[in-house]
């Protein structure tokens, strides 16, 4: 199992443009995917836009309730004790008008597009961009904290996965595990079976008794905070590239404003990420977390005090070494005439360019390496790290 940490760190060392991380501590990257298309316009509130308040008569976050970030933007108050302090410390930045060129407004289509990270016209399910990133970094050290292996992590490079809310002490002992692995030797599932047992063992080693105590009989989803702390413990160890997804953002009905459905989800997410940052300790300074979602939602509220599928969204970029405390990237004044199709936020910061730019800085990847992760999408450097 040492191979992972070793290869990743040696690769990271080779980079020249890398700004974080002492040579002994290669950077860690966690991608957080909000599935369902979270309502970014109520998360990063365009407080200077009267059009925002006209468009959302029942769900807008009032100016005086939002946490002012600058003259134009305010943060949803549910993040007062989590993201806001990180932002104030300069450890979080926000990128509005972010997203993809995919216009299907389909959750599933757009999630897949993003996770594949390829030009829309030539998509292949053979590999996702996180898997290609693993390969570009030399392989190993990658884990998805999900039951299924997400499309982003599919591909040739071996990636572990574990559902942190259902895992518990194994009832299959070491001898039996070896016998099972023996049956799969040489089959097309051989690598997965071995990886599964190895990941199971390292999760048990890293999480130990806390895990077993907390997970007994637990099959329902637990709060993200508990999960986030576990992720931090595992990313302290051999896993340097992580993925987690969180559902529950498809707020077609009764979304709420300052309080309510979306506020609750944001509060939970913020608290989890805050706990993650804290649990990473000194390693937080070499850690990058990016929060994305498949699309934003309609700028205007719908007939049910909710919002429907839209286009542009807001990405979060967090980390101890991030040059944060700002809302960054290409921007437009928020008004009716700048909406995309008179309906949604436009996309000015294409996700592949933005993520490619972050990876280039984080790992010192050159243009050719970035192109292998995101073919056909030159990196855009937002100088966030």
């Amino acid at each position, binding site marked *: 199992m040492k191979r992972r940490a070793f290869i990743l760190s040696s690769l990271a060392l080779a980079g020249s443009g890398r700004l974080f991380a002492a040579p002994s501590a290669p950077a860690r990257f966690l991608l957080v995917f909000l*599935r*369902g298309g979270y309502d970014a316009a109520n998360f990063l509130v365009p407080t200077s836009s009267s059009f925002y308040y006209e468009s959302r008569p029942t769900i807008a976050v009032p100016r005086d309730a939002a946490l002012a970030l600058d003259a134009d933007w305010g943060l949803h108050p549910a993040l007062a004790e989590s993201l806001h302090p990180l932002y104030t410390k300069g450890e979080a930045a926000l990128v509005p008008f972010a997203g993809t060129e995919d216009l*299907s*407004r*389909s*959750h*599933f*289509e757009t999630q897949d597009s993003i996770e594949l990270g390829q030009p829309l016209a030539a998509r292949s*399910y053979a590999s996702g961009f996180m898997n290609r990133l693993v390969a570009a970094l030399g392989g190993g050290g990658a884990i*998805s904290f*999900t*039951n*299924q*292996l997400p499309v982003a992590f*599919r591909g040739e490079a071996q*990636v*572990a*996965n*574990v*559902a942190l809310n*259902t*895992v518990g002490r*194994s*009832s*299959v002992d070491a001898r*039996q*595990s070896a*016998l*099972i692995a*023996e*049956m*799969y*030797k*040489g*089959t097309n*599932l051989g690598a*997965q*079976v071995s*990886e*599964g*047992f*190895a*990941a*199971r063992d390292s999760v048990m080693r890293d999480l130990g008794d806390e895990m077993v105590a907390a997970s007994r009989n637990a*099959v*329902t989803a637990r709060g993200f905070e508990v999960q986030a702390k576990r992720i931090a413990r595992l990313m302290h160890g051999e896993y340097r590239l992580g993925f987690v997804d969180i*559902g*529950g953002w*498809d707020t*077609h*009905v009764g979304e709420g404003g300052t309080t309510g459905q979306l506020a609750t989800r944001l509060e939970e997410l913020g608290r989890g990420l805050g706990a993650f940052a804290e649990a990473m300790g000194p390693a937080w300074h070499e850690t990058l977390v990016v929060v994305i979602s498949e699309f934003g939602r309609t700028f205007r509220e*719908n*007939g*049910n005090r*909710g919002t*429907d*599928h839209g286009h542009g969204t807001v990405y979060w970029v967090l980390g101890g070494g991030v040059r944060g405390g700002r809302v960054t990237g290409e921007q437009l004044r928020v008004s009716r005439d700048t909406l995309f*199709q008179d309906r949604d936020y436009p996309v000015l910061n294409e996700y592949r360019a933005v993520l490619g730019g972050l990876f280039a800085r984080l790992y010192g990847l050159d243009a050719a390496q970035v192109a292998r992760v995101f073919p056909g999408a030159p990196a855009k450097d937002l100088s966030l790290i």
Partner: protein
Amino acid sequence: MRRDFTLALLLFIGGCATQPQTPASRAPLAPIAWPDDSPALELAVLNRVSWGANRSSYADIARLGTGRWLDAQLRPPQGEVRARLPAEAQAAIDAMTISQRPIAEIAAELEQQRRAFQNAAADDRKAERQAYQESLGRLGREAQTRMLLRALYSPNQLEEQMTWFWMNHFSVFQFKGPLRALVADYEERAVRPQALGRFRELLGATARHPAMLIYLDNARNSAGRINENYARELMELHTLGVDGGYTQSDVEALARILTGWSLDLAGGELSRFYPRRHDFGDKVLLGRTIRGRGAAELDEALDILARHPSTARFVSRKLATFLVADEPPAALVERMAQTFSASDGDIAQVLRTLFVSPEFRASLGGKFKDPQHYALSALRLVLDQRPLPDAQPVIGALARMGEPLYARATPDGYPLTRTDWASPGQLATRFEIARGIAYRVPVRIPMELVASVGDATRETLAKAASPQEWNLLLLSSPEFMQR
């Protein structure tokens, strides 16, 4: 193929009706010729078409021969399932509230309970809230248990698999609103009767059922207060497919057509059309003008969607993904789509085209079991006709493997391919489930009913230190993962 096609064409000319079709009115199917039967082939077909082979189902297919067995699976005996289950399983289902009380009565009672506390403060009326939640929980567990018992014991295994398939295609999430009280009825009246019937009937029944109206928010969709959620998924996931040729303006038009279809939980009808909430303007859907006139617009729109060539392809491909291969051969999908169109969406006809194809035969044994297939096949093998002591551990096992019944949160339903279920973490979990089953069986599970066990597995099985360990290894073997 020629004969199938001609027959299907005749049927099409004969019956374009959109009236609900009872099983009695279904057209006869041409018998399937299956000339070169062999025990190995029978076992392979059984493992694909059923939830898993056991001694009694293997005896059935061996007695009838594959062709006649498939004929019988495509046109199961009409009438209720009840006469065909073992007595213990049927008695368990008969004792359920969902069997004993009409859904309208259950729904009305629960809705009244809910209204009594809905406006109370959060920590007020705790006992009522708890009682309400417990009722929902019990009804949801009954529905899951019923599904498992039928899948384990019904001789009409294709009907059971297709009921699961369509429940997954028209997926709802039981933890939204009062859905746990409604999923049993959704399955029983909207989906199961047409599982081998007409696609158009499935579409109409799911569109009007309160479970779908709640899940995809159409219950809240009304004139001037449009909610696009169901309209979009109806085209993307239920009929045309995401590349099926619709646009955002079609989504908006369909959403307007769907205005006014909402709930009547307290009033005993469950759902109905409310003219006052309907948008009576004309709409243009997929290039066709639908004159605004009320409830009739829905059937007109569903006819267009059900008969669209994109729907024939999309649904055929999904059926073939479930019953043939993760990447089904394009030529087979095309032939199925032709049958789909020519038979006006007769599902049994489409499946017949699938079963007689050389692609089906060539694919046997090549599908990786999703968790539902895995758990059920292990239990069918172990239990055969013996009663399941307790459904709760099975419900728990499915949840732990990531495929709980009626609980896909997103409307796309569970995925059907190997890449979705064979990740390292999922395999490790699956071996835990295997152990849970294996150690409850005190004697060795015979391996004759596991298809083509290879040398590596035999050598490993020989090292088993106990019957239980043998069972663990057999249920964990690569061969047992395939169907």
